[in-house]
């Protein structure tokens, strides 16, 4: 019986880890897909805090090594939307080092079992390429059940 309760407790504690759902807000502007998702997946805004999004959007001419500059209209539309839909959960609402989702403490903890060479595989390329392993990333589902790590 004691084991049974331990099991229940373990499931309750563990379950948030299996429920990483980050659906895209339904009011996503077309510009987000067209401008941002040309080069990387359309990251759900809840993956970063408001301040971090503000930082990202104010430095687009030097965006992680590339020029991702926007015209004023798209810049404003995307900024407002990202900040409005930014992380609210305490865990995700942190100021990300270098404004990178992949440098937040929660991201690093979640991926601590992934060895360095895995990130460099041709099928992965970068920690920014969520969909390489998270097969349902495009739908905002990062569940541990939906993971398939490319062999090379």
């Amino acid at each position: 019986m004691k084991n049974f309760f331990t099991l229940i407790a373990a499931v309750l504690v563990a379950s948030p880890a299996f429920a990483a759902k980050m659906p895209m807000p339904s009011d996503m502007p077309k510009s987000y897909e067209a401008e941002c998702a040309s080069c990387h997946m359309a990251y759900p805004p809840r993956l970063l805090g408001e301040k971090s999004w503000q930082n990202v959007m104010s430095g687009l001419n030097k965006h992680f090594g590339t020029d991702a500059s926007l015209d004023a209209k798209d810049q404003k539309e995307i900024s407002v939307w990202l900040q409005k839909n930014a992380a609210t959960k305490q865990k995700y609402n942190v100021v990300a080092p270098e404004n990178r989702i992949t440098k937040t403490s929660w991201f690093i903890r979640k991926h601590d079992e992934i060895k360095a060479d895995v990130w460099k595989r041709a099928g992965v390329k970068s920690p920014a390429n969520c969909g390489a392993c998270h097969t349902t990333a495009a739908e905002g589902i990062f569940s541990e059940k939906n993971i398939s790590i490319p062999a090379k």
Partner: protein
Amino acid sequence: MNKELTVIRICLLAVSLGLSSFANAATPQDLLKTYEYQSGKASPARGEQFFNAKHGKEWSCASCHENPPNHDTKHIVTGKVIKPLSPNANPARFTDEAKAEKWFKRNCNDVLGHDCTAQEKADVLAWLMTIK
């Protein structure tokens, strides 16, 4: 008489709306002419060389678009799929001047560290138009 004027006005309005909605629409040939007009006759051979060469920085155009750019490729950093750049392989390419200019600005900055000249754009586009 008034009625006739109204009809004419409506027709003019319809024509102007129709034209304005196509203001950005272009063909690769239109864009090539624009760039050639701003510089000189395009050279596909020069365009090919420019596309595949590095220009003092880490990447060439081909780093992301590959050579020949007539198939889906992957962004060198993020792995995101990039649709073919050649207008023969992807008819949506170079049909919107503002979009073409936006990407030239971004990608020339990434590859050269500054804007491309109209001649460079003309050359590259002329080469891309020869790729099947």
